[in-house]
């Protein structure tokens, strides 16, 4: 089942294991420059507000009600990353593992293939949590992604439109599969509880204050390049409980539409990369010595970034795309340091 708690989606599988719970939240962030360079990870600027689409029946497009799920507001000037947290189970000294598939406009963010509900091992079309702490964009090559940035659906910029030629779905699609209980208990047997165990720290986020475009919904387009590895499944395809799954459609509303639907003000526009960097605030780099990165998708590598597409169309979709040279980069290592966070304030 999926619940909406404090602007996070909580996937739980009590029928598999009482601790099989995965929280996914959607972090607001700035757009990294779309200048052909590889950038570090931008900060989390707080969660996007999320609402059930069913609560606004009659005010949202009919197909949103048909899809079910939730909605959130996005400015064209901002970007998004997904934060995964499956909690820590002290008696097993690990987090419960999940296979997570993410698509934008029903285009798989790891392979670039069309959406299917099933998991596929060859090529791997999913991520493994907790090994993958977050996802910032489309996996275009080994160790590099293109940032998820919001663009209006129907203008040809989104990954969905570039690959399928249609502006049909928009939004984000998520499906989660838990590890089989017997596999979890075999791989991570219970251990005697020790006192003074180092407290598990989630790769967390922070809240920042909050802003506003019109046409129907938004889709995610490939933005600037960023260093991020998508980890190869360290377990095995057979380890996932493929009979048990939960999925959610996340609709993206532009700011004006959000206000019209909900009556609520959307969050404020985030700073540009240059403003953020000039203020001396940090960027992030993540290092996991054990992880093996997937090669990346040729389909996704062929996508044009928003700036490239804009040049071809004779448009200038990102007026603030100035380069930024980070002076402070915080390196985060997997599971070793207390207070590992990826947060910013401005």
């Amino acid at each position: 089942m999926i619940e909406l708690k404090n602007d996070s989606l909580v996937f739980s599988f009590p029928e598999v294991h009482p601790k099989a719970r995965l929280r996914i939240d959607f972090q607001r962030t700035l757009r990294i420059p779309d200048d052909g360079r590889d950038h570090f990870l931008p900060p989390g600027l707080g969660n996007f507000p999320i609402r059930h689409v069913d609560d606004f029946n009659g005010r949202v497009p009919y197909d949103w009600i048909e899809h079910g799920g939730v909605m959130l507001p996005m400015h064209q000037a901002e970007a998004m990353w997904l934060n995964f947290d499956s909690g820590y189970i002290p008696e097993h000294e690990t987090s419960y593992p999940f296979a997570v598939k993410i698509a934008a406009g029903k285009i798989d963010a790891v392979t670039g293939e069309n959406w299917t509900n099933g998991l596929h091992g060859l090529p791997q079309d999913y991520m493994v949590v907790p090994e993958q702490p977050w996802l910032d964009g489309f996996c275009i090559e080994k160790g590099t992604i293109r940032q998820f940035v919001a663009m209006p659906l129907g203008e040809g910029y989104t990954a969905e439109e570039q690959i399928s030629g249609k502006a049909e779905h928009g939004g984000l699609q998520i499906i989660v599969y838990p590890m089989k209980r017997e596999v979890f208990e075999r791989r991570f047997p219970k251990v005697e509880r020790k006192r003074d165990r180092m407290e598990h720290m989630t790769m967390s986020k922070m809240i920042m204050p909050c802003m506003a475009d019109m046409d129907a919904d938004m889709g995610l387009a490939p933005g600037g390049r960023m260093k991020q590895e998508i980890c190869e499944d360290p377990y095995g395809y057979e380890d996932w409980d493929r009979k048990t799954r939960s999925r959610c459609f996340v609709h993206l509303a532009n700011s004006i539409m959000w206000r019209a639907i909900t009556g609520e003000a959307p969050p404020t526009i985030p700073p540009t990369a240059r403003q953020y960097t000039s203020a001396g605030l940090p960027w992030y780099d993540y290092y996991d010595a054990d992880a093996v990165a997937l090669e990346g998708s040729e389909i996704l590598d062929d996508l044009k970034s928003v700036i490239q597409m804009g040049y071809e169309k004779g448009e200038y979709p990102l007026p603030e795309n100035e380069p930024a040279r980070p002076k402070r980069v915080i390196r985060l290592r997997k599971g070793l340091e207390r207070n590992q966070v990826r947060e910013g304030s401005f």
Partner: protein
Amino acid sequence: MMKIFGDYIRKRREELRTLDREFSVRKVAARLGVQPSYLSKIERGEQAPPTEAKIRALAEILGEDTDVLLALAGKVSSDLQEVIVRRPQLFAQLIRQLKDMPDHAVLKVVREVRDGSW
């Protein structure tokens, strides 16, 4: 009730013991702070289920849901008792109305994010 509770925890403990010897009756009893013979009698349904605190500890050791074990033992956790005591008529009525409803209907009381057709 004693038999259902006993059968359930024995089955679960035996499953875990096939993976890890730490789940023998003796070892689990030691971690629980009881005599092995006492735990063995509970598992055979010859002894009433232990206190809420021991059931909570047992749920932790076996990786089970505390509320499920308490219910199998015929108990209601103290935090739920407090909730019910504050508005006894309302919760008694609610539980009676929910008692014959299928799981999916009961789960709607806990608000889920609805999946549709896409």
